[in-house]
Each structure stands twice: as structure tokens, then as C-alpha cells.
């Protein structure tokens, strides 16, 4: 008690502000209003404490105050339920800095579950986001969804049932995604148009695709780079793709372990990648036409090393099914082979370095590799000239470890 008082005094001395307050919210008829009021009237440093039980919410919640913690009694005990949501494009929207979310669940949001936009510092820990009916095209797009944020930390959380990505970090910088479980989503974990991300210690299973690293044209931030994906279990991602058509992830073949599309300097190492029916690792250019004059659709400086590959290629989907029918064996690591692209009507090329080294495979001992030899980004698969020769081993400097500032 004395210690707490001392700490409180210290806080006043240090910040000159009033003592941080804890807003305690219990489930019940008044909970929705009380909770939104707390999220609006909270002062920096405050905690909003969710009681045990189910909070039935009719509208999206939002927080726009810096340094607030929303904390529940555990991801299975404090549940924000949006079963009857009538308003709001997401369950919970965060637009302020240095916010911590911890120990609660968001279920069945009509749109995205938790979105953090334009934040510096978002820490999500032991949070569950879920669409409880399982994979369904009517589920919301993203589970945990920081976009245009700096210093993102998502850990020990669970994402299930998203019709796009369970954990999606878009157009952000300085990112750690670790020790999470992503299952029964279209994409388990997706890092898109982002700079400097460490994705490790996660389990991605029963998704359509396990872990995706994408870079797309036409967005305010593109040119994704410096991504490390390591020490993850990326296994049994064979849930039939249930993304609404038109979305980029609707093109992810069912049964994909890791998919790298465009991006520069992506290192995938020391993962267990197994039992993904189409392919364990797919490296591809962005294959659609685009008008963004700064965009580079090539996947380049990609390192796939020291991974443990299990079974794959036994149920190829999409374009790779056609390939397989032609008798082309599906490898552990498949590259489209693109080194040329067209931008503004001009053909461009650059040195594309793909390194596949020191992988192990239960099927093929050393992990197998195949280039489709589609030299131009977006060439039809019918023009494939498969080539199993691994690219030369070159040194590509690994990005530095991400530190959250």
C-alpha cells in the first residue's frame, strides 16, 4: 500500500498530472455506454478495466487518447461481443499513441475486429479476435489490424476466422509480431507495404495461407522491405480460400505456407513449414497491371534458409494445379522467376537475388527449388519454362533486429 502511494506520488512529481485512473466496466445493460464514455473521457495514463463476462455491443468502440490501457480479465473471460453490431466499420478503433490492449476478446465484429490507425506505439498482448462461426466469406476482413503505425508489438494473441488476414500489419514501420496463434483465416499473418518487421514464434495453421509478405501498388506507403520471418510453425494451411473475390488474398492458393509477393530484403529462416498442400514457400512478383509510377512489383533480395520443410505439393490449387498436371513437380520453394517488369510502358529490369540455402526437407532431404522462368512479372503461367537450378548463393545482409522505440 505504501509502495503504491509512493508510486502515485512519484507519478505526480514526474508528470505533473493527476493520478492515473482506472475505469472499471462491468457487463450489463449500461456497459456499452459506460465503456465508450470511459474511452472518451480517459486521460493519458488511465486504464480501462473490463470485467469478467460478455459485453454486448451495438456499435463500434473507439479510443483517441494517448497512453491508455484497455485491459480485461483474459482473452476468454472478458469478451466484447459484436453479434448484434449495427454501427461502425470495426469493433474497436484506436487512433492514439502508446495504447496497450491486453487480456480481452473481440468477437464477431461486422467489419474489422481491432483497427489501429495512424498510431505511434500500439501494443497488443493476449488479445483474441475471432469470428466464432469459423471460416465464412461474411466474416470481417481483418482481425488485428494496425495500419500506418510506428512501433507495433503484437504478441501472445489469437486471431481466428478473418476473411482476409487474422493479423494484418499494413503500411507500418518497426513491427514485432511474435508468439501468436493465427488459424482458420484466409491469411494467418500478413505484413503488407511495411518496413522493418520481425515475425517470429508464431503458429500459423489451418489458414488458406500461413504467413504472407506483400507489397501492393497505389497505396500511400509502398516499397515494403526488411522483413524477417523466423522460428514460426507454419503448418497445415489448407482451409479453402474463403475471401470475397476481388480482394488480393482471394488469389492465395489454398495450401500455401509462406507467400512473398514483391518486397525487398525478406529473410525466411529457421521455420517449420509443413503439410501445406500447394507449396511451402511461394515467391512471386505482383502479377496484375498497375499505374503506380514508383512501384516495383518484383520480389528481390529474398533469403530462404535453414527451414524445416515437411510435406507439400500433394494438393496443389490454382495455377499450380495446372502446372502439376503437366507433370511439373511442386518444390518446397517456388519462384515465379520474374526479373523484368513494365512500368509506364517501359520495360525495366534489375538484379534479382533469390537465395535458397541449407533448408531441410522430410520429402527431399534438402529443400527443393523451382523457378517457373516467367521472366516478366505477370506473364501467364502457360509461358512457364520451369528450371530447378537453384540460384547462386550470395550474401544478402539480414535486416537488423527490430527494436520497439
Amino acid at each position, binding site marked *: 500500500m505504501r509502495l503504491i502511494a509512493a508510486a502515485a506520488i512519484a507519478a505526480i512529481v514526474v508528470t505533473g498530472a493527476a493520478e492515473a485512473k482506472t475505469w472499471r466496466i462491468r457487463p450489463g445493460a449500461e456497459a456499452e*455506454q459506460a465503456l*465508450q*464514455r470511459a*474511452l*472518451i*473521457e480517459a486521460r493519458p495514463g488511465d486504464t480501462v478495466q473490463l470485467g469478467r463476462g460478455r459485453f454486448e455491443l451495438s*456499435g*463500434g468502440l*473507439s*479510443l*483517441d487518447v494517448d497512453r491508455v490501457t484497455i485491459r480485461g480479465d483474459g482473452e476468454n473471460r472478458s469478451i466484447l461481443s459484436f453479434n448484434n*453490431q*449495427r*454501427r*461502425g*466499420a470495426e469493433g474497436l*478503433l484506436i*487512433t492514439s499513441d502508446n495504447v496497450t490492449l491486453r487480456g480481452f476478446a473481440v468477437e464477431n*465484429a*461486422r*467489419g*474489422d475486429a481491432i483497427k489501429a*490507425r*495512424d498510431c505511434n506505439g500500439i501494443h497488443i498482448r493476449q488479445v483474441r479476435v475471432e469470428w466464432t462461426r469459423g471460416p465464412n*466469406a*461474411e*466474416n*470481417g*476482413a*481483418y482481425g488485428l*489490424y494496425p*495500419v*500506418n503505425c510506428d512501433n507495433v508489438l503484437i504478441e501472445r494473441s489469437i486471431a481466428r476466422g478473418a*476473411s*482476409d488476414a487474422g493479423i*494484418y500489419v*499494413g*503500411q507500418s514501420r518497426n513491427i514485432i509480431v511474435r508468439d501468436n496463434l493465427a488459424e482458420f483465416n484466409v491469411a494467418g499473418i500478413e505484413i503488407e507495404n511495411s518496413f522493418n518487421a520481425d515475425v517470429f514464434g508464431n503458429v500459423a495453421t489451418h489458414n488458406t495461407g500461413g504467413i504472407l509478405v506483400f507489397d*501492393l501498388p*497505389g*497505396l*500511400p*506507403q509502398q516499397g515494403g522491405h526488411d522483413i524477417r520471418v523466423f522460428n514460426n510453425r507454419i503448418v497445415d494451411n489448407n482451409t479453402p480460400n474463403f475471401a*470475397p*473475390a*476481388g*480482394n*488480393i488474398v482471394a488469389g492465395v492458393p489454398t495450401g500455401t505456407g509462406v507467400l512473398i509477393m514483391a518486397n525487398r530484403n525478406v529473410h525466411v529462416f529457421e521455420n517449420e513449414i509443413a503439410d501445406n498442400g500447394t507449396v511451402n514457400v511461394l515467391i512471386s512478383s505482383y502479377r*496484375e497491371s498497375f*499505374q503506380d509510377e514508383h512501384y516495383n512489383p518484383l520480389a528481390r533480395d529474398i533469403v530462404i534458409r535453414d527451414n524445416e520443410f515437411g510435406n507439400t505439393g500433394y494438393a496443389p490449387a490454382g495455377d499450380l494445379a495446372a502446372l502439376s498436371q503437366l507433370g511439373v513437380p511442386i518444390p518446397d520453394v517456388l519462384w515465379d522467376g520474374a526479373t523484368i517488369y513494365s512500368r509506364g510502358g517501359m520495360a525495366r529490369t534489375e538484379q534479382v537475388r533469390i537465395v535458397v540455402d541449407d533448408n531441410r526437407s522430410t520429402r527431399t532431404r534438402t529443400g527443393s527449388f523451382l523457378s517457373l522462368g516467367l521472366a516478366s512479372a505477370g506473364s501467364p503461367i502457360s509461358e512457364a519454362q520451369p528450371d530447378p537450378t537453384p540460384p547462386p548463393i550470395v550474401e544478402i545482409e539480414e535486416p537488423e533486429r527490430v527494436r520497439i522505440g
Partner: protein
Amino acid sequence: MTSEDPMDRRRPRRHAPTLAGEGAGGPYWRFILLALLSLVCITTATAQAPAPVNQAVIAAERPPELLSAYHFFRDAGAREPNERVTPYDLNTPLYSDGALKFRYVFIPPGQQAQYRDEGVFEFPVGTVLIKTFAFAADMRQPTENVRFLETRLLIRRAEGWIALPYVWNEAQTEARLSPIGATIPVSFTNEQGQAIALDWAVPNRNQCKGCHDVAGEFTPIGPNARNLNRAGPDIAFSPWSEGNDSALIPRSDPISTNQLDAWTDDHLLAGAPPGANAPRVPRAFDPASGSLDLRARAYLDVNCAHCHNPQGPAHTSGLDLRWSQHDPIAWGVGKRPVAAGRGSAGFEFAIDPGHPERSILLYRLRATDPGVMMPETGRQLVDERGAALIEDWIAHMDSEGRVHE
């Protein structure tokens, strides 16, 4: 009505209310109202001259609980604006479930807004933008049985704008501050004679910022040069004009003065060119005011661009629907969805030129599911007129997204 000095029209007495059930017999109700006002005035010992707008209340750190504390209106029902509380109209307003909107600006005596061609005028500290949302019991008779729901204030403080929603009571005698929003059940008959029931959602502070946000700064949306630049014989300043011979709101009220010129003449605005030389958007639903292309773009500018601009809340989508954006690609022509989820409806492009039936933008304008619809907040019904306009616009596009009528 027709031969009077237009300046005279902006004296507050010109905007005396047309209360429900009262016809064209102006003098009688005006007499009654004056008598009532006098009574109020006598009891508050301010005799004939009503108290001016209370600038101390506007400046106060803590906003008052009741709208009446500001003295923006002379009557409890907020029909008759006080001195310097100037009604204004926009060429193309935001759709809000078809609600009637009554807009006023208060600029402190001796001060002026600074004109800008682009963006909202630079209003001096102490400015208040006042907007009341209302429905008539039967929207085919919009001057009768008008029920005020809320009056939103945007107050220009030294540190920026703040938003304060005041919710009207059942008796329509006072409006009370509701910073965390509110839900008001509303039922009315719409212009097509259909019975409509909805829960009007008064936005909370965060939801206000969800639209009024430019690069993190709270910003008004409507009062810019091009939307205030109204002229011609068929435009009204205020729906509460006397001589109730037309059933329509805004009333067709002959006035020859351009609204920008009137603001200049009234010393509300400095630095403005003559209205005839200033930018102007057409009225979206008046073909006489502009081409299909310009009217559609005016509609998108007002209804979408507050979020979909490079500094707005939806900047991460890459869509830019501002009036000043002339590149069809930025409007979404040929643009693939990024984070639309099931909002894509399975379509490939935001705008598929010539094909409104497979354009995501139109699909989301017509949606009412909170996880799909656009705008995300501020409506529950579909703006059928707006959707028809956009449908027509997309249908007339060539493959480059240009419209030739």
C-alpha cells in the same frame, strides 16, 4: 419578399421560424412570438434587446451543459438566430439520412474569416459553426412538425477546433451536451411517402473526428469557397424564411446576392474575390448547375473526400475523391481493393468504368451493412439520389474514366 434589399435578409428577424401549423399569416405569429420573447426578456431583465451571443461561454474551457447558454438563438426552440448568427447553405451537402440541416456561423464581432480558394476558410478564434439536424414528421411537408434532434457546434479554439453535440429534449425546449453521443429513435415519412424508422446516432467525440480529421487536426468540412459560392435567383440563405408559400426546404427564395459576396459585405469574410470569380461546385442534383461529371465529383467531394484524401482518415486506402483531384486513377478507376474485405462484393475495381454494376464504390454507397457501407458513419439509409448520380457517372465513363455527355 422579392424587392427587398438582400442584406436585410440576413438580419436575424428575417429568419423567424415558421412553426408547425402556421400558414402565411406572418404578422400574427410574429406578434405572438415577440410577446413571448418580451416576456422572457422581461423576466431576465434585459428588456427589448436580447442578450448577445455569449463569447465568454464560447471561450470557456468547460462547455455549458445547455445550448441556450450560448445565446445563439433568441428563442428556446432555436428557430430565430441572434445578432451575427448568420444562416448559410451549401451547394452540395453531406447526406445524413435525409435529415434537414440548418446551418449558421457565428464570427466574433470585429473579426473575419480569411478567404482561401482551397480548403476551409481560416476562421478566427471564437468562431462557431452551428448545425441543427431535424426531421419533419412528413418530409413531403418539411416545414411542418419539424423535430430537432441535435445541434452540433464546431468551436474554433486557439488550439484548434472542437466538436460539441447538443441533443434536443422531447419537448424541444432545450438541447443538452452529449459528448459521448446518443441514440434517438426517429420515425418520419420520407419524400416518397414511405414510413421510415431509424435510430439516429448522435456521434461521439471520436466519431466526429472520424470525419473531421486532416492529418490529425480536427477540421470543419463544409464551409469552403466552392461549396459556399452560391448565387442566383433560386437559392435561399435560410429555410426559415418567412412567407411560407413553398413547401420545400431549402426554400426557393428569390435572392440575387451571392453568398460569398454577402459574407464579404457583412464583414464576415476578408480577402475573397467576387463570388463570380471564386471556385464553385455545382449542386449535385441540379442538372442546370453543372455537367454530370462535375455534379458527381461534387457529390463525392462532400460525401467521401473528408476521409478519402491524402491526409484524411482513409488515406491508407489510396483513394482520393477530392474535387481538386483530377486523376481518375486516384478516384478508383481501375483500382483494386486493398482492405475492403467483403466490401468488394467480389468486384475487381473500385470503379470499373462503364460498369456501375460491378464497381465497388457504388456497391458500398448502396450498402447498409456497417462492415460494408460507405461512408462508415453518418447514415443508415441509402442516399438513392446520390447512388443514382454515381451510377450514371460511372455508366458514362470511357475506359480512362473520363465522362463525355
